[in-house]
């Protein structure tokens, strides 16, 4: 019973030349909500696929709900619920038919199926639409139905691969309220992936994953505290000259992030007056300055050297992602 819900040691997966996941270790305690945060192509989905027995690890091992993902596939499968990154619903069946098929595949005792279907559909506010074809559902409703389906057989561990991608902010926050209430009220462990920083804040702990490696793993608060710096961004007409000026005059290593000169300092508010006092008229004039408290973006930046959006912009997966979002 004290065994962690998920424990992973040296887990790796390569597809030919590509090392999608290169040796990761972590543990997730029972009842915890654990987030995997990383840019496109970081290896998040690959990790989930290995944990849910759909992909065989190249090396390393993992246990989920107390069972080995390679040797005890079936037991793992019986104990997990899954929401994949791309929808896996049958559009030509009604919501209820989708759920019933799932219940049959998972061999749920017959007499529990109907009440349990009602429970999950009510919880995710789908009860009124239970007889509609899934093809007529909006993206948010489909996502909710998938979560309902993942919960139907009362799994011990629920995997959510980017549960809110492509949804509007309102739907995102409502899905998050379901997820957090799940973690609180039921003894269920949640493993999720996201590349929205604000969503990672909902997790008990997060791991930042970049190019197949876990860069850092801690609670969101501890991570933010570890950065300990405010983020300052300066707009001028000449970014190159500005970076050079910051280096000479203040000894600060600034870099470009999201198209703006960006750097971290311990006390942002006190730094700004000093900046203007000492800014040489020969330097390009400052158009605007912004100061922000450390966020997970800064955590990401300080550990990986780029912001998550920049990491994604450089990735060819971006196109795939956009296509996916538009097709929703």
């Amino acid at each position, binding site marked *: 019973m004290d065994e962690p819900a998920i424990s992973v040691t040296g887990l790796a997966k390569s597809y030919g030349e590509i090392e999608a996941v290169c040796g990761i270790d972590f543990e997730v305690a029972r009842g915890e909500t654990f987030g995997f945060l990383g840019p496109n192509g970081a290896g998040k989905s690959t990790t989930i*696929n290995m944990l*849910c*027995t*759909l*992909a*065989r690890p190249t090396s390393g091992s993992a246990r989920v*709900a107390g069972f080995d993902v390679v040797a005890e596939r*079936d*037991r793992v*499968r*019986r*104990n997990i619920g*899954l929401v*994949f990154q*791309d*929808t*896996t*619903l*049958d*559009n*030509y*069946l009604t919501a209820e*038919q989708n759920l*019933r*098929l*799932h219940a*049959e*595949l*998972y*061999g*749920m*005792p*017959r*007499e*529990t199926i109907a*009440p*349990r279907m*009602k*429970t999950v559909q009510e919880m995710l506010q789908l009860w009124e639409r239970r007889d509609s074809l899934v093809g007529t559902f909006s993206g948010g409703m489909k996502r909710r139905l998938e979560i309902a389906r993942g919960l139907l*057989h*009362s*799994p*011990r561990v629920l995997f959510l691969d980017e549960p809110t991608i492509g949804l509007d902010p309102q739907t995102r926050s409502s899905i998050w309220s379901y997820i957090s209430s799940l973690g609180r*009220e*039921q*003894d*269920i462990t949640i493993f999720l992936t996201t590349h929205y920083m604000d969503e990672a804040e909902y997790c008990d702990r997060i791991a930042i994953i970049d190019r197949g490696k876990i860069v850092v793993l801690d609670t969101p608060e501890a991570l933010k505290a570890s950065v300990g710096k405010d983020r300052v961004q300066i707009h001028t007409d000449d970014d190159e000259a500005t970076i050079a000026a910051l280096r000479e005059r203040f000894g600060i290593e600034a870099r470009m992030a999201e198209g703006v000169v960006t750097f971290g300092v311990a006390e942002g508010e006190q730094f700004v007056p000093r900046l203007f006092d000492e800014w040489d008229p020969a330097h390009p004039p400052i158009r605007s300055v912004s100061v922000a408290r450390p966020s997970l973006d800064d955590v990401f930046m300080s550990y990986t050297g780029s912001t998550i959006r920049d990491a994604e912009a450089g990735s060819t997966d971006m196109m795939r992602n956009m296509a996916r979002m538009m097709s929703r």
Partner: protein
Amino acid sequence: MATESTVPPTPAALASGSGSAPAHEIPGLHVPSRSVRGELRAIRAVWRRELIRFSRDRLRILTSLVQPFLFLFVLGTGLSTLVSSSTHGVSFRTFIYPGVLCMAVMFTAMFSAASIVWDREFGFLREMMVAPVRRSSIVLGKCFGGATVAGFQGVIVMAIGPLVGVHYTLGLALEIFALQLLLAFSITAFGMMAAARVTQMQSFMALMQMAMMPMFFLSGALFPVNKLPAWLGVLNRIDPLTYAVDPMRRAVFAHLDIAPLARRALDPGVTWWGWHVPGLLEAAVVAILGLVMLAVAIAEFSSVE
């Protein structure tokens, strides 16, 4: 199929079954360990999904009737003016009817098998693949579903038999029904086997077209299989569809009241090195091929990640 009898529910299952306070139920108890009953339920669930989807697809039922009608009434009627001298008074339409029935079943079965390619494309295959049941149950359910759908289509084509001079007795109807169901199953198994490897819809359809057309033309659906030039005779005997068309034609002709000469000319039966292959053996050939392909399909789906 699984029986409807209920197992005694565990106390925990009952407690959560009441629908109240799911907060303190013991998670994971809803999914029992793997059993024959569980596999049968999975097979039936997958099978039922195919039927639900088919019943929603009225257009497909209709469009797949176009081809048999064209063959029977356009090609059949047109050619009968040309071949009437050599059919000994038997309508050419009656002659090609068994072959056309096989073709209709074959194409429907192929489309049914194609649905697994769509399932992969739209992700639903993953939902089935990750379920705690054997992959073989998923493949079997798909295969039975496809065969049922194709068999249903076959029944519709069976129903137009009287229009082309095939008048059913109960025995004949049952015989034809069983044969076409067998064919439906084997072709679906063939499609599933191909779908395990070919993941793109266009390639799958092209491949199927490439396999189906020669199979149909070589099978003797449109001509008697004796007196063929040697090369065509060999190809005809290799073609699996031959062994579905021939027993069906035999059954139909057994119920026609015609001269022995006409029977010998139009329904000569398939021979292996001069030996007349009995109908039951022909059906067995179709069945065994189907089972072999099903086994290959199961093996392939079980090994993919």
